[in-house]
């Protein structure tokens, strides 16, 4: 890869961007090392999309500054554009055109001659399993195919930095896995990927480092392991046979685990965070002990599981407020 990945891929200092009275970015700081997948994790309206749009030179920040491979996104926008690609949340291709036409068009715009652009398009279509759909209009593609052609278009010029804005939102699990495989291949070939997502497991699967974003700023940053251990290593879910037993089960669990127990919306379900400051092993031991105590108390349990903390729980722990979806992104769209 030579010198294309020396120095950080992205450095942002105190980015601010408002839409009307809404501060979408409120002093966002970011350091993205080159050659990795970096995850921006947060709920809808946290400012992830706005951050990506600023870094991709689509929006000007009101305050702060950002550099991509050392180039300022405002004053050296053209140098930034030469090295980045963006796959937005919405289809960023011409839906009236066929997949092949879209790729040839982009190839021509990136300076390839007509035969070279055709050849490049054919190879990309083949690599992304879209050869049979090459002559079909993009609007007739399925969700997974659309994502793939979108990513194919984004790597047409083998960018040094690829922005993927919620690449798997709305995809079925199989398509999601395909996209994950593609992202892994892209980063293995030296392209830095900045990925936004609402899903902790996605960030966990792909990202080397994660920044948790809320209300336009980064509230936590680290490797997936660091973030998870900061909020506890797991969550115990208990489903009871009988809703009437819930108050008693809650007492038993609280005593056994030594942590607060939350009644869920479902009247037979209880949840609790475990392993707050320990390892997975301790969380497992705690959970096993809790299950034993429930059995000893004669409470019938239909389902018992120890899972990873959800994004909601990470948020609750980091911000003391749940990761509510406040539709702010939709407003931002309208304000554009």
């Amino acid at each position: 890869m030579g010198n294309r990945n020396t120095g950080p891929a992205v450095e942002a200092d105190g980015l601010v961007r408002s839409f009307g009275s809404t501060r979408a970015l409120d002093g966002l700081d970011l350091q993205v090392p080159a050659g990795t997948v970096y995850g921006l994790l947060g709920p809808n309206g946290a400012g992830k999309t706005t951050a990506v749009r600023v870094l991709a030179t689509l929006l000007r920040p009101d305050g702060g500054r950002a550099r991509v491979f050392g180039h300022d996104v405002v004053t050296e926008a053209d140098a930034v554009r030469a090295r980045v690609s963006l796959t937005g949340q919405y289809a960023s291709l011409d839906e009236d055109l066929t997949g092949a036409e879209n790729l040839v068009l982009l190839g021509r715009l990136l300076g390839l001659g007509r035969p070279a652009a055709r050849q490049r398009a054919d190879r990309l279509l083949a690599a992304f399993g879209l050869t049979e759909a090459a002559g079909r209009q993009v609007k007739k593609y399925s969700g997974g195919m659309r994502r793939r052609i979108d990513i194919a278009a984004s790597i047409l010029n083998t960018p040094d930095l690829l922005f993927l804005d919620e690449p798997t939102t709305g995809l079925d699990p199989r398509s999601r896995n395909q996209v994950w495989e593609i992202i892994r291949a892209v980063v293995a070939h030296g392209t830095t990927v900045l990925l936004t997502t609402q899903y902790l497991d996605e960030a966990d699967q792909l990202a080397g480092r994660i920044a948790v974003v809320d209300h336009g700023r980064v509230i936590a940053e680290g490797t997936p392991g660091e973030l998870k251990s900061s909020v506890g290593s797991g969550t115990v879910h208990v489903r009871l046979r009988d809703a009437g037993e819930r108050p008693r089960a809650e007492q038993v669990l609280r005593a056994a685990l030594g942590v607060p127990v939350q009644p869920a919306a479902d009247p037979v379900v209880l949840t609790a965070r475990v392993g707050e400051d320990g390892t997975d092993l301790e969380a497992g031991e705690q959970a096993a002990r809790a299950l034993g105590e429930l059995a000893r108390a004669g409470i019938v349990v239909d389902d018992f599981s120890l899972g990873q903390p959800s994004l909601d729980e990470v948020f609750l722990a980091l911000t003391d407020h749940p990761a509510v979806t406040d539709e702010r992104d939709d407003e931002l769209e309208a304000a554009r």
Partner: protein
Amino acid sequence: MSDTATTTGRPPSVYVPSAEALATVLAPGERPPRPGALSASLTFGWRAMLKIKHVPEQLFDVTAFPIIMVLMFTYLFGGALADSPRDYLQFFLPGIMVTSVVMITMYTGVGLNNDIEKGVFDRIRTLPVWRPAALVGMIFGDVLRYVLAALVILGVGLALGFRPGGGPVGVLAGIGLLVVFSFAFSWVWTFFGLVLRSEKSVMGVSMMVLFPLTFLSNVFVDPATMPGWLQAFVKANPVTHLVAAVRAAMAGSTDATNTLWLLLWSAGFVVVFGTLTMYRYNRR
């Protein structure tokens, strides 16, 4: 792998990303030099052609609409304003050609607004190409539509008895002037297409601008019959200069004064609205 599966919109076979296949397209190759301004603009123009190929219905407004305009006004006003519709047509056809084509320039703004809504513009705006290329290319595509509309109107006119004194050369010169002006005037709509929020508001504004501009002119009647204050507006209206210049060209003469005015207006539109458009385009 039968083709019947494709009609349901599902891929006929399950795609499994293969590391080897992806490696062939991910190897960083030579970056070609960025395309020049004209080449990039023409590529965007090609995109407009492809869109016409896939959505031919969009040509409705440059075919059916102009035909309706010609027939409607020729027979509506022809008897009253001249001895017969055929006599009126000799005066009226260049004017209605200008009116129809200037009216369809607004679709440039509607199309641009539509593009922005769909998100394809995000990708276009992150490409390292000459910035105005996307818009220039879009207008190149529209110029083809203007030529098409002008030819349709000419065809209808000839069928109804329009006999231009300037012959083919004069007619082509007239259409040429009209296309130059329409190209320039399209920049007004790229600006509104970027500033306004929806397709509907672009249409609303365009009607407010286009109706006075085309009707308060010398298209339909001789301005000498109008009150003084209206004559003043009509005289300053760029459409009046355009119609006078096109009429003269099609009749086989040249109206140097009006042609000059029309070219000045065109340059003005490109400079003022082209600049405003690019300012907005870069600062969204």
